[in-house]
Structures are given as structure tokens and as C-alpha cells.
């Protein structure tokens, strides 16, 4: 089976709609297919990674801890757009840290999130073979 560059594009806020949650379900299933996987968070999608989510009072399922499992699934190229954070008054500190253990570097724990500019994000999109948008 050929290897393709998959890009999952997340542009929507969590909870108001289910796209963020169901997108994550695709990513987790997709991880088993051994493709080259990247995730892009831009526009309102950056809100998905906000730390401290607590859904008890809205009565919905809090799926934010699931993002932390991505590293175990070898999904560790997570691009967050700087301009999208800026527009929302957010910094990297407002997001939950996502990490993975690098098998090529003695299983050192490394950050999965990389903050990129709009121009860099455009280049990541440009280099993708399959783009799934949610």
C-alpha cells in the first residue's frame, strides 16, 4: 500500500458543533493505516486545543483528553497557526501540551505542537496528498 501525506484540517470550535470530536475519531482510526499524518489547527479550530476544558455543566462529553493520546498513535505533527491564536488573544500557554516519545532519539519526550505562520501553514497544505476538512 502506498504512503500518502494526509492532512486533517480543523477550523471549527469544539462543543458548539460535533465536527472537532468526530474529526478526532477519524484521526485515531486513520493512525492504524501507517500513512504520513499531519493535523492543522487554524481559525476557530485552535480553540479545540484549549486547556482546562470542563463539560460537566453542559452535560456533554469532554473529549479534550483524547488529543493527548495522539502521541501514542504516532500522530505527532500538529500544526497550530500563530495568526489564528493572535486573533483570538491566545498564546501557546493557553493550549494543553501534546507530546510524543521519539523512538529515533532514545524515546525522549518531545512537543507535538508546532506553531506556524499562515505562510507555513499554506505550504503544509500545498504539500498534502489528501486533505480532510471538518
Amino acid at each position, binding site marked *: 500500500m502506498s504512503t500518502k501525506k494526509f492532512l486533517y484540517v480543523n477550523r471549527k*470550535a*469544539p*462543543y458548539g458543533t460535533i465536527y472537532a470530536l468526530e474529526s478526532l475519531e477519524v484521526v485515531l482510526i486513520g493512525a492504524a493505516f501507517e500513512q504520513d499524518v499531519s493535523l492543522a489547527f487554524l481559525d476557530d479550530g485552535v*480553540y479545540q486545543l484549549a486547556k482546562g*476544558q470542563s*463539560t460537566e455543566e453542559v452535560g456533554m462529553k469532554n473529549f*479534550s483528553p483524547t488529543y493527548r493520546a495522539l502521541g501514542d498513535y504516532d500522530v505527532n505533527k500538529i500544526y497550530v497557526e500563530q495568526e489564528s491564536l493572535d486573533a*483570538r*488573544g491566545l498564546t501557546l500557554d*493557553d493550549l494543553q501540551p501534546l507530546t510524543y516519545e521519539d523512538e529515533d532519539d532514545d524515546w525522549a519526550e518531545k512537543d507535538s505542537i508546532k506553531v506556524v505562520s499562515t505562510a507555513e501553514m499554506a505550504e503544509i497544505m500545498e504539500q498534502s496528498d489528501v486533505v480532510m476538512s471538518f
Partner: protein
Amino acid sequence: MSQLHTVNKSPLDRNALESAIQHATKGNAVLMIEDGVYGAMQGTQKSAIVSDAIGDISFYVMGPDLKARGIDEARIIDGIKVVDYSGFVELVAKHDATQSWL
């Protein structure tokens, strides 16, 4: 009469909050719910839309929706009151009609 306007859309993506505020008359209230609560945050590209209107309009935001989205109340624009679902019900009861900016 006095109306309650609810907004459930992120102002970073949609025009609902801006349009609601333009159509709220003096003494009206705007309640931000669901993804609309992002409109209550300080320091966003759209915060001025709300802070400029505070005074003429009363602003409220759903606490449960803030919590779900990990937004600390300390990050909220000064003058916006946080309510829960009972507070939502009271706001509806207190105003003559409710208009949802879908």
C-alpha cells in the same frame, strides 16, 4: 419593551454577534451561549465590538459554556455577567421577547 438577544456563534467566524449588537436598542440584553461565548473574551480581534457597546446594552455569558471551552472567567471583558441555565431562564422571563441570532 425590552428584548433579549442570544448569540451562539463565534464572532471570529460569523457576523451574528456584530449584527445582534447593531440591532439591540438601548436597554436590551445580549446573552452569549455555546460558541458565542468566545465573543466575551478579552484581547480578541472582536473584543471591541462588545466593550464599545457595554453600558447601552447589558451583556451576559453562559458560565457552563465558558467552562466547557476552558475559558477562565478572569479572561472575560469587564462588565459582562456570567450566568448559568437558571440565569438564562430568568433573563428570558425578565425581557419581553427573545431573539436568537442563528
